[in-house]
């Protein structure tokens, strides 16, 4: 308390210096780390999207001219080969497609279904809210990984079902965030002003509240994306997803044997590192965006 008083009473050179980082933290500026995250995610996304056009080895073709688990650089394999003699770089890039699909799919389903539920519940309140939120709470009460495993076990383990399962598990979180945001914006005076100008409920919901709710929910959605990528990885690591699909989680799983048996680390290390960096970047950016919206709100 007294420290605060001292610093505020007497502007020191340190204050002047700290003003600059304060400025860089403003909305729209990401800082060096932020830009590194963007660059990494951009690289992953572009590589994954362009995978069919890149001069890569077939991710599911064994190279018989080199050993399995050969070190990076041998026989033209930049990152080496794995336990089956598959090219690791190629598998990383093709595996990125899975993570990308999971990320986009979960974000889309979560925003639309979860966001929709939250928006309706937060705006109309009353009975509708009780019913919707009860459903959400019930879904939330299931252990999510168990639910995910059950879904994949029942519906089959192809990628579509994995995305569907993770989306289903993440819908409650989206719904709650959207509801909370809608509640705060629903009580703002501009909503009353719109009503007093003769706007119908639907118009108020779509024109006044939705545009305000989308951005905070999207910022939160980035954090969910990180969790979703990890969740898919976990399923793949447990061998619960289709073995035909190349995915980072599956690659880590595949790297277990060389690591335990032969002490060869790179087969598991590369996919782990890529996944770690990706999730970290998404998390960091998500946090940054959320902070940016907080500042924007405070400035209003």
């Amino acid at each position: 308390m007294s420290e605060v008083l001292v610093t505020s009473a007497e502007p020191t050179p340190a204050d002047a210096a700290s003003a600059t980082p304060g400025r860089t933290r403003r909305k729209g500026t990401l800082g060096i780390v932020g830009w590194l995250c963007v660059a990494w995610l951009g690289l992953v996304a572009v590589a994954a999207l362009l995978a069919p056009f890149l001069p890569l080895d077939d991710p599911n073709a064994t190279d018989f001219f080199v050993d399995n688990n050969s070190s990076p650089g041998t026989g033209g394999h930049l990152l080496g080969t794995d336990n089956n003699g598959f090219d690791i770089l190629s598998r990383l890039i093709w595996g990125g497609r899975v993570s990308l699909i999971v990320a986009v799919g979960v974000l889309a389903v979560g925003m639309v279904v979860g966001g929709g539920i939250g928006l309706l519940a937060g705006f109309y309140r009353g009975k509708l809210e009780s019913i919707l939120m009860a459903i959400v709470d019930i879904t939330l009460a299931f252990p999510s990984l168990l639910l995910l495993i059950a879904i994949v076990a029942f519906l089959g383990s192809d990628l579509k079902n994995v995305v569907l399962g993770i989306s289903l598990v993440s819908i409650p979180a989206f719904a709650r965030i959207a509801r909370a945001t809608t509640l705060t914006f629903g009580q703002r005076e501009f909503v009353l002003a719109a009503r007093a100008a003769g706007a119908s409920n639907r118009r108020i919901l779509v024109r006044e509240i939705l545009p305000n709710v989308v951005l905070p929910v999207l910022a939160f959605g980035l954090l969910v994306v990180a969790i979703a990528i990890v969740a898919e990885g976990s399923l793949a690591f447990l061998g619960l997803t289709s073995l035909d699909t190349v995915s980072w989680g599956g690659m880590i799983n595949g790297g277990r044997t060389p690591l335990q048996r032969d002490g060869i680390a790179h087969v598991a290390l590369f996919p782990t590192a890529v996944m770690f960096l990706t999730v970290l970047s998404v998390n960091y950016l998500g946090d940054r965006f959320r902070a940016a919206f907080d500042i924007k709100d405070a400035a209003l």
Partner: protein
Amino acid sequence: MARRERRILTADQSEAPLLVVEDLATRFRTPNGLVRAVDGVSLTLERGRTLGVVGESGSGKTVLSRSIMGLLTSREVEHSGSVRYRGKELLGAKPAEMRELWGTEMAMVFQDPMTSLNPVMKIGRQITEGLRYHHNLSKADARDQALELLKSVGIPDPVRRLDQYPHELSGGMRQRVTIAIALACGPHLLFADEPTTALDVTVQAQILNLLKEQQEERHMAMVLVTHDLGVVAQHADEIAVMYAGQIVERASTRTLFENVRMPYTEALLKSIPKLDEPSHTRLQVIGGRPPDLINPPAGCRFAPRCPYAQERCLTEQPPLVEAETPGHEYRCWFPVGTAKGAEALERNLAEGDAAAVAAVTGDSTAAERVTAAATTNDDQGGQA
């Protein structure tokens, strides 16, 4: 259908008053009990006239204006009485019917332009929204009208403003924008709910003048809600003073300022700082707080804080009675400026009544004693 109805409404405009409110009551159901926020308010308003509604915070001014407009639609709100707009009963009207009136017939300017504009929508869109769905204008026509509106409310460089967001404008500019939005569809009745409270003092006068100007130009009726008697003195034709959900005095502006009858109004007038007083003069405050609206006092609601209060005031509620001047009504047993009132004040002074001492001498410790007494009364009321 609704459009035709409106045309019929326009036909008989000058006949009856635009707005007639009779015995309007608004109650909120809360876990602690029923809050009587507005309790038996009656008023009439004609086109081209301004009614100032004055009172301290929590006296029910805002709830009154929102009740008349029908904006309080929560399930926790109960209404009774009657609100007739051009002869049409609004209480109990369907939401769809009200939507036909909102914006086109009656509109509202809110207190805080920081929160009454949508932060993520461009100014232009916010103005054209109403024009587009009420008047079915094309995008280009609506934009032209929005431009005209921005010009008429005195916004410099209006073309650029159309494509700006609210946060790019100053508070005064934003309030001009909300006025433009409220006026967009040509309403006949404008509610201005403390339109200048959130603004800089220098901007206040500009906004009030703008409202007056627009009102005269469009021949609108206006309800100007404020806690600032100075504001209504200049801008209202008639003033209703509210206390604890009731109108306690109503008169034309001139009569009210010259012939105060209700002690509450007198106290409000006394609490305005005056320029000709020496600096550091203590402001005369009204000791105590407004009563608990769940269990309002049995007698006059102002009695616990009133310098004139007698036994009768604590037990019997005074009705709204007509003064000598026609159209001047007040609620008091011992009105200011009468022999009865002077005698009551005399008696209280002799007895050393805290409220009376505070009112006459400006003694702040006496005012604090009133506050303390009112607080203990509240506590007892809560336990009972």
